[in-house]
């Protein structure tokens, strides 16, 4: 039997019971739609997270206390909550003298409540130095950044994120206003341009930035840094800058055995790689969840095809009597299953794309998350391929059942 005749016959057979065909397809539509939707969400989440790291600056090198013991995927000790006090001012000074490094800024972080009049907000504060602003691409919308003189003189000045400024001061100009953090009075000298959510989900528009000296001595009570952020000189290879940072820190910390490193140096590319790996696993996980509904849809197809084989026993007998071979019968039922799943897949892709679009507009319009629209072609190709494959896999058993029927028995069937 020619393929076009098989397709025509299969299409006529499916159109004969439209409601059943539509309901059978529904399982595949939901399954494929879910795969598309979840893979798109996974892709958008990956783009968002990587975009946030990329948006943190360029040519960045991060120094985190504690070693990740040589495994790229193992978190450094500091990230596991272990307090390590080895990063200090000596490291900062030594790194500043490196030719392959443009700028270095320390980071001391903490949480506190910021109070202005009756307004009271929980915030993350970060003690740093003026170089932090250009390193992290933070620009000033109002006022100015604090200076090295502010750092050296322990001046109680802060620069705040734009959203925090709105929350605290509403329509009033925040510049020159005094606020309290941990019972210490600070003067607001600058407001940052909006920058959205930063790496690891911190809303950079709600940050409080202050001189590192004040954060260290008066708010947290430590003499070390939580981390260092470095901007490598663009004329040098970033890997070289990274190796120089490692050398300087080993020298400063008197480390001769690399296995005993008490710090971790990662470039922006390392971080993107790491986050890319994590989010790829997340995408796979989401696709795996959606695949369960595809499996259910496939079983639905097999169920209906088995019913159809029983209902059409006489037709099968007749076709075999007039010359259809077992292969013709198998092909006809397989093509029917493939048509069901292919069209189910196409409609599922359309629904998946529609819901992806709806979610995109909802997030963009009702949140500050910089969500990007992603409808990966790989997901569409995968969904189409998988849907036809499901048709063939779940159609083969009913098709073989049909082909196995003896024409005499089939023609006698009532």
């Amino acid at each position, binding site marked *: *039997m*020619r393929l076009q*005749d098989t397709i025509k*016959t299969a299409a*006529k057979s499916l159109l*004969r019971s439209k409601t059943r065909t539509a309901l059978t397809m529904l399982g595949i539509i939901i399954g494929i739609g879910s795969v598309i939707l979840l893979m798109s969400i996974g892709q958008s989440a990956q783009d968002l997270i990587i975009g946030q790291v990329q948006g943190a600056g360029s040519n960045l090198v991060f120094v985190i206390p504690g070693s990740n013991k040589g495994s790229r995927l193992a978190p450094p000790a500091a990230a596991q909550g272990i307090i390590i006090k080895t990063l200090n001012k000596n490291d900062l000074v030594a790194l500043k003298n490196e030719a392959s490094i443009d700028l270095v800024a320390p980071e001391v972080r903490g949480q506190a409540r910021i109070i202005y009049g009756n307004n009271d907000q929980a915030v993350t504060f970060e003690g740093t130095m003026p170089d932090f602003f250009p390193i992290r691409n933070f620009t000033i919308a109002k006022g100015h950044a604090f200076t090295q003189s502010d750092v050296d003189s322990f001046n109680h000045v802060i620069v705040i994120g734009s959203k925090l400024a709105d929350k605290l001061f509403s329509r009033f100009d925040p510049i020159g206003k005094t606020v309290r953090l941990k019972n210490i009075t600070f003067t607001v000298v600058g407001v940052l341009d909006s920058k959205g959510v930063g790496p690891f989900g911190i809303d950079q528009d709600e940050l409080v930035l202050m001189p590192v000296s004040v954060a260290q001595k008066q708010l947290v009570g430590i003499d070390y840094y939580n981390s260092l952020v470095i901007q490598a000189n663009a004329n040098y290879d970033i890997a070289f800058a990274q190796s120089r940072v490692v050398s300087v820190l080993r020298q400063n910390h008197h480390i001769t055995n690399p296995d005993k490193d008490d710090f971790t140096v990662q470039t922006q590319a390392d971080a993107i790689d790491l986050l890319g790996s994590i989010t790829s696993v997340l995408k796979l996980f989401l696709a795996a969840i959606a695949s369960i509904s595809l499996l259910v849809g496939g079983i639905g197809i097999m169920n209906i095809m088995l019913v159809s084989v029983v209902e059409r026993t*006489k*037709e099968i*007998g*007749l*076709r*075999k*009597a*007039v*010359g*259809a*071979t*077992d*292969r*013709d019968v198998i092909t006809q039922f397989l093509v029917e299953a493939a048509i069901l799943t292919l069209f189910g897949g196409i409609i599922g892709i359309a629904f998946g794309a529609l819901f992806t679009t709806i979610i995109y507009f909802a997030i963009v319009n009702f949140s500050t998350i910089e969500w990007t629209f992603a409808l990966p072609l790989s997901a569409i190709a995968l969904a189409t391929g998988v849907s036809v494959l499901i048709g063939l896999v779940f159609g083969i058993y009913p098709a073989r059942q049909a082909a196995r029927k*003896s*024409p*005499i028995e089939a*023609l006698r069937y009532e």
Partner: protein
Amino acid sequence: MIALKAVKKIYADDGSSTVALNGVSFEIHKDEFVAIMGPSGSGKSTLLHILSFMDRPTSGSYTFFDKKIEEMSDTELAYVRNQEMGFVFQSFNLLGHASVYDNVEMPLLYSEVKMVDRKKLVENAIAAVGLVDKTKIEASKLSGGQKQRVAIARALVNNPRVIFADEPTGNLDSQSGGQVMKIFEELHTAGHTIVLVTHETYTAGFANRMIHIKDGVVDSDQLIDKHPTHAGFIK
């Protein structure tokens, strides 16, 4: 030529066995119109199934125009059924939801006839049974006699050497039955070999040879004259 030699068919089921045919031998020549008769359970339907390649004998040999059934695969049997045989059943076996055209076209879907030639063959077959005005009608909307005529058109669309008919008038009133038998008579005149299974002596009277089966063996095999009242009956 069709030749059966000592054909046996034994159905085995759960340790017991039933002998449906017990050494049947005869030959059917080209252009013959043969009626196979016999009481219920005599083995005549089993014989028709073997003659039409829908079943295989347990032993003995069957040759259909130089093709030995015992040497052929199921796919080859299907090919011969499609190319050289036509089938008419008591209960018509039409696809009720499909049009007359689609029903008649069905054997050609499994043949090597080119798409361009197919339409002409289907139209000719429908014209031969006088249903040109019903071509696009759903088969389920036809009368019994019309349905059997569609079945005959389907049987002759591939211009087979032999048309096998199993009780073709069994579900029809006498007038429709007469019309159907008249078509068989015309097909025979046009050169088709017809093998008809029936238990009605009157229907068998259209044939020119009658093989009587009893208890799985050929009880009698004789040439017959046309039934003297057929002409009046058909009119």
